[in-house]
């Protein structure tokens, strides 16, 4: 069902964790719906210096969280905003149809964290 890439990210989600005093936090989903993701970002020079996450969910949700954090790290905020459901799934060598919403969730959680950061900064 899952690609090797998915299994790799699921088995070693090295960006999992939280960032104390994060510059932005984005939380999406809720446990009642089955998946929940929280993204934490550290911003430096308009770039994502660090990205971490906590995820409650299936294999896909965890793999998506990790690859989104990888894809985002080092990118400018603007660049990071262009991470979409589609390129997340592609980076994982595909996801089962019924799991596509997970990749959406990951992109959304990151976007929320950026939004949180921007809101704090620009009010």
């Amino acid at each position, binding site marked *: 069902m899952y690609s090797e890439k998915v*299994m790799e990210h*699921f*088995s070693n*989600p090295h960006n*999992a964790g*939280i960032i104390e005093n994060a510059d932005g936090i984005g*939380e999406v989903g809720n*446990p*009642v*719906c*089955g*998946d*929940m*993701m*929280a993204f934490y970002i550290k911003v430096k020079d308009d770039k994502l210096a660090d990205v971490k996450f*906590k*995820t*409650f*969910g*299936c*294999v*896909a*949700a*965890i793999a998506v969280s990790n690859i989104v954090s990888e894809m985002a790290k080092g990118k400018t905020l603007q660049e990071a905003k262009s991470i979409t459901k589609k390129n997340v799934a592609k980076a994982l060598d595909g996801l089962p149809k*019924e799991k596509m919403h997970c990749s959406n969730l990951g992109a959304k959680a990151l976007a929320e964290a950026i939004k949180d950061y921007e809101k704090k900064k620009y009010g």
Partner: protein
Amino acid sequence: MKSVYMDHASATPVREQVIEAMLPYFDQHFGNPSTVYDMGLKIKQVIEEQRAKVAKLIGAKPQEIIFTSSGAESNNLAIKGVALARQKKGRHIIISAIEHHSVLNSARFFERMDFEVTFLPVDEYGLVDPERLSRAIRSDTILVSIMHANNEIGTIQPISELSAICREKDVLFHTDAVASVGNIPVDVNELNVDLLSLSGVSIGAPKGIGALYFRDNLRLMPLIHGGIQESGRRGGTENVPYIVGLGKASVLAVEELFDKMNHLEKLRSLIISGVRERIEHVKLTGHPDKRLPGHASFCIEAIEGEALIYMLNQHGIYSNTGSACASKALKTSPVLVAIGTPPDLAQGSIVFTMDSSNKVEEIEYVLVKLYLAVEKLRSLSPLWRSKEGI
């Protein structure tokens, strides 16, 4: 890598003795049992011998057994066969809220055919309340179907109590015993049922063979119309090798039942107490005592079942889950919903089902790996963070 198979409710390996018994019927005694020459007649005879063996497994008479292609077909034949044969008498059917899909969707099919179906709720352990069943029966009720043991939570229903109510009110009673046969004593007369489904899947016979018990002379509309096979009750050339396999597996099941139960009860109590001791915030699903001997099912807080299964699978452990994420339709198991499990807790569902081949050492291994997997998934979980009060 070590391999510990703990998902016997989903499938069992076909037993060596069963394979051996089946083999000659593929290419040696391969004739069609409906033919009249020597080979056909001998095979017809063999089928009748198997019918007697399966009958014995559940305390029935040979002529009360129909061979089918699965537990699902048995369930469909029971529900549809009775409903179509009795529709003039009434058009109301009662089933429990935790029935297998094959019962549930057969009943739903009749809803679209202007039948009424009552879905009986169950309590937090998955038990049907006899009082409630009694109240649900109407003058136009023709059939009640309540499963003997549930495959997801292991709960065993008080069938004889439930069927007595139906007998008194002249309503037929069917039980899906796919999960119980071979695991606990199943006797159609003690259970006092009119129809009972069983499957090869759960007793070391192949997938693709099942049987339906129907009380002598009960009228039943065939599900698969055809020729004179199974006394006109099920068409299609008989699957002789699998019928022989089911016969052999039935004999073994009778011989081994009590040893198996003792062994499985030991394993079950090891796993249940082990999980309770080592993992906090865990709920046992199903009934604490009235449950299948080899069945241990839990909901583990703050993690998700599919992820857990994959993590265990990486250590060679095979288990199951009723989590929404593990289902194609992304729906929580209706059984977990019916026993009132909150959706977030239901996500953490994990089910271990064992059989005779499982060993005490395996349980220890599973407990260790389960603990580590839960720890890891909780370390990733934003819900656990809040539980720990961070």
